């Protein structure tokens, strides 16, 4: 089969993937008509929703690709701006690192709908041999981030061609960008495979539960670590420019071996002087990475084949020792269900690591300060709160098709909003605790500021309720955008968080009194919560 033919056929699988993620989202759309729906309208909406989802998926891909091109080009901007210590080697290395991180992170997010044999079920019944089938399935997977990979390869290659005017350097950059994309895809697949393997493990022993919880934490941290590839290299790589190009110590040679520094060095060597040892070490490493990329490509192909044929994950069956169940009442039952469902989805499990991320960010922000300033407490608190606001919508998404079953149970929409708001608020709680712990080691500019993060728990709860209620309201009107566009709900949530903080800032500017400012903030936070409570009672 020709590659072009396989690419053309892969479009069908890709559309099926997009449709399947849409089918999952359909559960969310039905929230609005909880308990009852207008099936006639809904069936008409289905077609519109599918077409719109495909258009939005395309637009989404284009936006992500554009952002990826920007981040891949940004390191080179420093060359034009003449940043000290920043050379071609570090620009190329940094560009490859951020592109790798971004591509892998995006691929992991899209893999949840791909890691299912159902997405290629139709294709598997066609008269295709194994290799053709695998190729088509792999292409359908690549289609979900094709724009971003092609965009970053073209931008990196063109810029290196412009900067070096060397055909050899350009060719090496093309190879390096392709290798980079292959690594990113392989890493994304590897992550997803580990996730599936852990989540599909049967049994209910305490050890299993602890292992699963640890895995969720690790999963979140790994994703966060991949995400940090955007920021960390910006601090590290420029400082390594001179170190990388000198072969004075064994340590330098070891760095030259590392991906993606080796690529940067080899390309730089084609246009300027680099010591022979450095070039030799980096070239050898690059050849090694090229072989590794071939291996990664083959492994990815095999993995895609296994997944699409439903043999990628071994299912362990553990015979139950008893059939006992523990009814907990509607509220706790729903909280437990939400936690289990969302934590077993690779796209939403990430959100449970947010408290850790929030705490890490706050500690990083604070590390260079002698005192814990009120402005820092406010900004750290806002950041943590805004991260927590992603969870209500993630929990709504995680309901998926299961919501169709929940609608048949004797439960009101209010009873469903409250557990989601509780879970979302709970993820924010580590932030005030982290700040209170920090205050034990660093003096505060005002003791009153320590209460700020604790008070913000209320606006986080209110914002979660508003976000969910806003979704229900727009969904009830049959607005398809309510399913596909979360921006407006997040904006409302962010505003609810910021208003009490603005009240604090205004109060302080007017009186220069922290206690008064805290009082103003408390009044606004409680007023917001009262409104949220009223809205909830009315539903």
């Amino acid at each position: 089969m020709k590659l072009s033919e396989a690419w053309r056929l892969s479009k069908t699988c890709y559309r099926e993937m997009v449709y399947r993620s849409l089918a999952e989202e359909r559960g969310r759309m039905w929230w609005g008509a909880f308990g009852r729906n207008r099936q006639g309208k809904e069936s008409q909406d289905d077609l519109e929703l599918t077409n719109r989802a495909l258009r939005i998926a395309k637009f989404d891909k284009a936006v992500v690709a554009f952002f990826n091109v920007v981040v891949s080009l940004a390191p080179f901007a420093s060359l034009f701006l003449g940043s000290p210590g920043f050379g071609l080697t570090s620009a190329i290395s940094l560009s490859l690192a951020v592109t790798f991180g971004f591509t892998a992170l995006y691929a992991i997010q899209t893999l949840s709908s791909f890691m299912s044999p159902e997405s290629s079920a139709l294709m598997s019944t066609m008269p295709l041999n194994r290799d053709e089938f695998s190729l088509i399935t792999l292409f359908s997977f690549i289609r979900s981030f094709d724009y971003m990979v092609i965009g970053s390869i073209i931008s990196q290659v063109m810029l290196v061609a412009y900067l070096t005017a060397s055909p050899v350097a350009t060719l090496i950059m093309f190879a390096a960008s392709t290798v980079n994309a292959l690594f990113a895809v392989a890493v994304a697949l590897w992550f997803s495979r580990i996730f599936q393997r852990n989540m599909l493990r049967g049994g209910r022993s305490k050890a299993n539960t602890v292992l699963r919880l640890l895995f969720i934490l690790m999963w979140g941290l790994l994703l966060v670590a991949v995400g940090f590839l955007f920021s960390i290299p910006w601090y590290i790589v420029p400082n390594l420019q001179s170190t990388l190009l000198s072969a004075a110590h064994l340590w330098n040679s070891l760095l030259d071996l590392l991906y993606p520094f080796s690529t940067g060095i080899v390309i730089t060597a084609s246009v300027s002087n680099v010591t022979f040892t450095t070039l030799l070490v980096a070239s050898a490493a690059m050849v090694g990475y090229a072989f590794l990329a071939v291996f990664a490509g083959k492994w990815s192909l095999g993995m895609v084949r296994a997944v699409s044929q439903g043999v990628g994950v071994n299912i362990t069956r553990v015979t139950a020792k008893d059939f006992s169940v523990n009814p907990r009442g509607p509220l706790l039952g729903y909280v437990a269900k939400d936690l289990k469902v969302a934590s077993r989805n690779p796209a939403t499990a990430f959100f449970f690591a947010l408290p850790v991320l929030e705490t890490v960010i706050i500690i990083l922000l604070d590390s260079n300060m002698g005192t814990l300033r009120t402005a820092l407490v406010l900004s750290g608190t806002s950041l943590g709160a805004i991260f927590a606001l992603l969870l209500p919508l993630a929990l709504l998404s995680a309901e998926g098709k299961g919501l169709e079953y929940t609608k048949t149970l004797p439960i009101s929409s209010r009873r469903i909003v409250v557990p989601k708001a509780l879970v979302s608020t709970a993820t924010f709680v580590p932030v005030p605790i982290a700040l209170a712990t920090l205050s034990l080691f660093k003096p505060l500019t005002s003791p009153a500021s320590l209460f700020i993060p604790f008070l913000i728990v209320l606006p986080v709860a209110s914002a979660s309720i508003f976000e969910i209620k806003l979704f229900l309201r727009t969904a009830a009107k049959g607005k398809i955008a309510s399913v596909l566009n979360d921006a407006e709900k997040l904006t409302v949530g962010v505003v609810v968080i910021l208003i009490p903080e603005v009240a604090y800032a205004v109060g302080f500017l007017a009186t220069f009194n922290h206690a008064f400012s805290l009082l103003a903030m408390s009044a606004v936070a409680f007023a917001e919560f009262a409104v949220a409570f009223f809205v909830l009672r009315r539903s």
Partner: protein
Amino acid sequence: MQRKFGFGSEPLIEISALTKQFGSVQALSDVNLRVMPGEVYGLLGPNGAGKTTTIKTILGLLEPTSGWIKVVGLDPAKNPIEVKSKIGYVAENPIVYDSLSTRDFLEFVASIRKTEKASTNELVAQLASAFDMAQYFDSPIATLSLGMKQKVALIASLIHQPAVLLLDEPLNGLDAKSSRIVKELVGFHAEKGGAVLFSTHIMEVAQQVCTRIGIIYQGKVIAEGTLDELRGKTEGSGGTLEEVFLKLTHEESEVADTMRMLREAFFKNEAK
């Protein structure tokens, strides 16, 4: 046998002049039916006849265009939560939370339905043993076969010992042993004084399980009664429900014509 539910002679499901319109499509038209305590009412009809729409409307998932419904004397539109608490429902395609294990899912359902722990555990243990679920009880539902998922949905529908069972093609994907168990369970439920609305398009199943059958065709209940009563309504039809059904829906000659055409087309291709 002592009747647990004790609803007397009032119908547990009552539908009067029910119509349901989806845009220009008339899904249900003037449907009237009653299911009494101790009765297994079979809703029999071809694909797209309106069986699932009827069940979803009883459950309160769809709003009637006109007419009214009462479940245990309550209107599902006005008292959706009370009505749902009295119903056990199995959907045509078992849709449950795939990432939960069977145990997690049943725990969730029992929590929402506020069931009592001891009686729930006793019932779940009996049903899970009967359905041979030991190996699958702690596995994610996503990894189960269609039949296993159907068993999970069936246990969940019985967990609160409801007065009314709405079963939409409940034997989908079940093996012979499990099908037999489900049919017996339906009988036990009726014996206790509960009501069952059993939707199916398989004639043999309706014939075995149901005490009364309503034939729904193009959104209308065109005939209703016991098998003998239905036979009486069709002159010259044979003994099976299938023959009665084809006669009542005027599909007998249509089926014969279609089969003749198909046979010709099938063998013509082979001759070439």
